[in-house]
């Protein structure tokens, strides 16, 4: 009985402590950012380094710089477990917090992004879906509160084709390209672009859906490796689907050098479980790899002082770096907005104004100590993608290394596709696109 009472007391104490931590007051002069994270659940191996990167960057801004021109960050995590319903619940719970409500929301899930677009637009909260979500949301006339920089899935598909073409001696005529994709809105994003490119470049395109979570792909890889025998395989995978695909590809003898994943199929957690099978596997990345950039010296110092918030093992990993770049984007957008509205907690509407005037130059990147971590972008009222690029990286069995410079997608063909799709969305929703002239 004594044991039971002690147990109940411990549970009560832990619950109380948890609720106190979760409702810590935000000071009136702080810029509040809700963090939708997934530190538990099937995608936790990807979610943890992402969440760590956000925490470390905002902590660094607060400690090293005293905030954004003196305006410190306040933030709170909410666990989504990568579930759409939980993501919406987290957004609703946190959007009213802080002096001016949520500054921005980073859903880190294409499904949650889809679920939040209308809500956040109505609430005037910018959604930064960096390298995920709807590609057509790059059209700022229809999606004023959604930002897709530095690059969309459609643009990623174009970069992959460009790379495969170069590696195939400058032509894909008569080649076979297979797409293995997560059978979800996310996985289907590149299909239309690849179908268009197959006609333009003359390659044969085949697609293979994989049901969530993607633990079983034997049948898929028997079709690819033993029947189709393609020249290249592209992958739009997520979580356990990635490592399973790499293993199954190896089991049918498909060469890893011809296997390229999108940037969500190219983290350490995607290749480590596949062991030696993953050597040579390639993926796109929208951010740089490693800890060479000068900002990492500041992060290391912060951790040496015992003030870092991330697990040290995650520093410099692909997804940690991606979160650093993500936080850098909105920090700079807030800085731009402060120039117009003053150094005070800003509303989402004011930060959206800052985003639409965000011009991340190479000089700005260097000054922030982030050289090599990202490519320049320039956002405008109409263009919410900003002209970013992607690199191809390769796994050598222990680390990722970039094997190309940043490759720019051919946006002359992509932009009309964004606009056409966005116009269709506007028609379905009864929206009148705003003028950006």
């Amino acid at each position, binding site marked *: 009985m004594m044991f039971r009472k002690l147990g109940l007391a411990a549970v009560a104490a832990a619950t109380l402590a948890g609720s106190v931590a979760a409702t810590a007051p935000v000071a009136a002069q702080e810029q509040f950012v809700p963090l939708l994270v997934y530190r538990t659940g099937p995608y936790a191996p990807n979610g943890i380094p992402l969440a760590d990167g956000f925490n470390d960057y905002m902590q660094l801004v607060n400690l090293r710089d005293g905030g954004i021109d003196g305006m410190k960050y306040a933030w709170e995590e909410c666990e989504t477990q990568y579930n759409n319903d939980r993501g919406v619940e987290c957004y609703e719970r946190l959007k009213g917090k802080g002096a001016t409500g949520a500054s921005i929301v980073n859903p880190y899930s294409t499904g949650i992004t889809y679920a939040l677009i209308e809500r956040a637009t109505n609430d005037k909260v910018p959604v930064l879906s960096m390298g995920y979500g709807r590609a057509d949301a790059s059209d700022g006339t229809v999606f004023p509160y959604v930002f897709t920089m530095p690059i969309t899935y459609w643009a990623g598909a174009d970069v992959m084709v460009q790379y495969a073409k170069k590696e195939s001696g400058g032509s894909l005529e008569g080649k076979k390209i297979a797409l293995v994709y997560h059978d979800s809105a996310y996985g289907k994003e590149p299909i239309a672009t690849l179908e268009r490119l197959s006609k333009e470049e003359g390659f044969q395109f085949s*697609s293979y859906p994989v049901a969530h979570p993607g*633990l079983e792909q034997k*049948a898929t890889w028997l*079709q690819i490796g033993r*029947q189709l025998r393609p020249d290249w395989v592209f992958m739009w995978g997520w979580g*356990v689907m990635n490592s399973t695909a790499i293993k199954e590809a190896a*089991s049918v003898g498909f060469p890893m050098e011809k296997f390229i994943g999108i940037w969500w199929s190219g983290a350490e957690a995607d290749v*480590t*479980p596949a062991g030696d099978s993953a050597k040579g596997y390639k993926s796109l990345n929208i951010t740089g790899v490693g800890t060479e950039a000068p900002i990492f010296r500041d992060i290391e110092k912060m951790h040496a002082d015992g003030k870092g918030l991330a697990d040290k093992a995650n520093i410099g990993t692909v997804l940690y770096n991606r979160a650093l770049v993500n936080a850098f984007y909105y920090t700079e957008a807030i800085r731009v907005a402060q120039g117009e509205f003053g150094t005070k907690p800003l509303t989402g509407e004011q930060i959206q104004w800052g985003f639409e005037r965000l011009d991340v130059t190479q000089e700005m990147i260097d000054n922030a100590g982030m050289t090599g971590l990202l490519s320049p972008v320039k956002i405008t009222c109409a263009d919410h993608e900003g002209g970013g690029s992607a690199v191809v990286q390769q796994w050598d069995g222990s680390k990722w290394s970039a094997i190309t410079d940043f490759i720019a997608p051919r946006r002359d063909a992509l932009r009309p596709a964004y606009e056409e799709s966005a116009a269709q969305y506007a028609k379905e929703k009864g929206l009148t696109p705003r003028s950006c002239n």
Partner: protein
Amino acid sequence: MNPTTLRFGIWMLATPLLIATIGLGFQGLAAVNSAMFFTWGYFVEVLIAGLLQGVLYSLVALGFVLIFKASGVFNFAQGSMVLFAALTLVGFIEMGLHWTLAFVVTAGVMVLLAMVIEKVVLRPLVNQPHIILFMATIGIFYFLDGFGQTLWGSDVKLLDIGIPKDPRFILEGIFEGGILVNSFDLVAALVGAALVAVLALFFQYTRVGRALRAVADDHQAALSVGIPLKTIWVIVWSVAGIVALVAGIMWGSKAGVQFSLALIAFKALPVLILGGFTSIPGAIVGGLIIGAGEQVAEVFVGPLVGGAIQDWFAYMLALVFLLFRPQGLFGERIIERI
């Protein structure tokens, strides 16, 4: 002749005929539909891959069968036991233990876990309706899921105990280009088959096995004839834990040790529906049918209907069997007087 043996005999004769008929059907379809690809070598290759995959499903299904046989309870926590066992094994390996020693220590942990579950969860619920015990196993699922990750972390962990993974070609003289078989799948199938054989013997020929069956029939009646219910439950949960450990090793070696392993339990459901919840041979035959059926369906039917059909196809196949044999292929027919 024993009815089970008779059923096995009929299946042994009927199965090759059924497979050949299905193959001929696909060959005919391919002749009229150029989008469909068919050669007999490819068909056999897909079939073998499916059968080997099916053994891995059977490994997970076995854990369910063991507990259902002994307590009449569907153990919702079996998937999280697979994850917990695999996480614990990798944790000990990362501490520097050789994998064989880590296996023994982890087996000990699973026995300890069985004792704790019996004392904390099952004992207070003796003679409660089965639905109450089922609900308790849902609680165990969530506890183990969180506890395992709290203890060992949420990172994806590599599990490599030296099982070869190279692709190899067989029957090159019969089929052009040979039949591709993965070494890992062969080893997994052998381990699964050995485990099933040991368990079948254990249940059939040992006193403990007979006692387990008596407990499954009626808790109170078993207690009245002196069968120690607590001990039986500890034994059966321990064996299910060790089966979970073996399943965790096989699936963990395939996909890495991570949360998604707990979801493997859902693959065992159609196997159980098909094979019967109380039959160990049923679990293995069910696994083979589901494994082969879903692979063949995905490869030959999938492209005609958009693909990614193997998950729901497994359940559909199980439901079709359910229409004709509600107790599963090898399950016990339940007759109750009103």
